[in-house]
C-alpha cells in the first residue's frame, strides 16, 4: 500500500466539536484518549482493513475534523464487539464514540448504509427487522410452536416520528458497500 499525504487546513478544524461530542451519552470520556492505540491493536476489524483505525477516529474528533469524520464511511465497519471498550486504559468507550458519530453522520450527511434503511422499513411494517415469510409461520404451527407474539407496527412508526428518524428515512440517501 502506498502512503498518501493528507493536508489538513486550519479552517477545516472545528475546535468546539470535541466538546459537543463529549456531551453526548457514551462519548463523555473522549477527551481522555491519549492515543496509546490499544483499541486499534486489539480491534478485529482493523487487522483486515487498510483504513479502519479506531484510534484515528478518536484523534480526528479531538482535532475537530468534523466534516471529514462525519462523512467517513469507515465509521460503519465497527462490528460493536466492544473489545476496545473493555481494553481502553482511559475508559474512553471507543465503540460508543463511534456509535455517537454514526448517529450524527446520518443527520450531517443525510445518508446511511442501505441495509439500515431496509431494516428500519421492515421494522415499521412488521415490528421485526426481517419480514418473516408466511411459510415460516405455517411451519411454526406444524412444529407445534406457539404463535409469534403480537406486534404494533403503528407504534413503531410513532417511535420513528417522535425521534426524528422517520423524517431522515424519508429523504436520506443510501450507500451499499464500504471497502
Amino acid at each position, binding site marked *: 500500500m502506498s502512503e498518501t499525504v493528507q493536508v489538513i487546513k486550519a479552517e477545516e478544524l472545528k475546535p468546539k466539536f470535541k466538546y459537543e461530542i463529549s456531551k453526548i451519552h457514551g462519548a463523555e470520556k473522549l477527551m481522555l484518549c491519549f492515543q496509546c492505540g490499544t483499541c486499534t491493536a486489539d480491534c478485529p476489524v482493523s487487522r483486515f482493513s487498510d483504513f479502519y483505525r479506531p484510534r484515528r477516529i478518536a484523534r480526528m474528533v479531538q482535532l475537530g475534523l468534523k466534516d471529514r469524520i462525519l462523512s467517513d464511511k469507515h465509521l460503519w465497519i465497527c462490528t*460493536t464487539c*466492544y473489545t476496545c471498550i473493555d481494553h481502553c486504559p482511559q475508559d474512553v468507550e471507543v465503540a460508543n464514540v463511534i456509535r455517537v458519530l454514526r448517529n450524527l453522520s446520518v443527520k450531517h450527511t443525510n445518508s446511511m448504509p*442501505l441495509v439500515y434503511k431496509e431494516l428500519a422499513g421492515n421494522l415499521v411494517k412488521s415490528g421485526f427487522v426481517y419480514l418473516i415469510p408466511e411459510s415460516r409461520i405455517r411451519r411454526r404451527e406444524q412444529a407445534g*410452536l406457539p404463535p409469534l407474539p*403480537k406486534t404494533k407496527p403503528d407504534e413503531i412508526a410513532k417511535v420513528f416520528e417522535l425521534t426524528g428518524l422517520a423524517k*431522515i428515512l424519508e429523504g436520506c440517501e443510501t450507500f451499499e458497500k464500504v471497502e
Partner: protein
Amino acid sequence: MAEERPKYLIFLGCVIPYRLSSYEISARKVLARLGVELVEMPEYNCCGFPMDPVNHDVMLILAARNLCVAERENLNILTLCNGCFGTLNKANKTLKEDKEERERINKYLAEFGMEFKGTIEVKHLVHVLTEDVGFEKIKDSVKKPLSSLRVAQHTGCHLVRPKKLIEKDDPENPTLLKELIKLTGAKPLDYMDEAECCGNPIIGVNESIPFQMAKEKLEHIRAVGAQALITVCPFCHMMYDLNQPRIERAFNEKFNIPVLHYPQLLGLAMGFTPEELLLNELRVKPADLLNEFQRGRE
C-alpha cells in the same frame, strides 16, 4: 415446601423466527426437561439493536417497550440471542441507574401508556442454565453422555462485553459455555483467539472483512481437531453455519465443521433424537459427528 420452578418470559428476537427454528425448538425442549417454565411475550418488537447505529434513542425506546411488557407481566426475560441480551440488558441497566435518561425515555414511553420502572432482570439462556437450573441438575438430566466428542465453543461478544455492564464471565477467556459443554460429556477444546468476534454485524456493509474473520476462526478450530463448533447466538451461528460454504468457496478451503446450537448438543446428551432437535436443518450437515455418536452407543 415445593421447589419453585424458574419462570421466564421468552424473548425470541427477529433472527430466530426468521430462519433458525432449530435453535428455538431445541432450547424449548431442553428447558422444559429442566423444569424451566416459559411464558410467551404478549406483545413484542425488535430488541432495538439494529437501530442503534442510526439512532440511539430509537434503540433505547424499542428496548424499553419490551422491558415494560415484562414489567407488566412481572417476569424476568430470557433471551436466546446475544444481541437481544446485550441490548435489553444495556437499556435495562442504563434506565435503572441513570435518572436523567430514564425520565427522558419515559416521556416517549408515555405516548404508548408505558412507563419504565426498573423491576425486572434480563438473562440469556446461558445465565439461566448456569445460575437458575444449576450444573447438578443439568448433569443429572444427561442420559447419554457424548464422551467421544471433541468440540470448540464460540461464546460471542454481546454475552460478555462490555464487561462492566455484564460481569458474569471473563470476556478474555469465557468459561461458562465450556462448563456447560463438559456437562454433556463432550470435551471443550482450547483454540487460538477463542474470544474473537464473528464479524456478522457488518456483513450488510462489508462482506470481505467478516469472511476473513470467520475463515481465520474456522482455521483455528480445525487446527485443534474439533468435530463441531458450539454457539449460543443465532447471529454468530449464521456466520459460521449458513455462510460456511460461501467462506469455503471464497478462500478455496474445505472446513466442513458443523455448527450446533448448545441446546442441540445438550438435547442429544439428554436422549432426544437428532430429528427432534432439527439437526437436519443445519447448513453444514453433522453426518460424521452423528455417525460417531451412533457408534459410541453401540
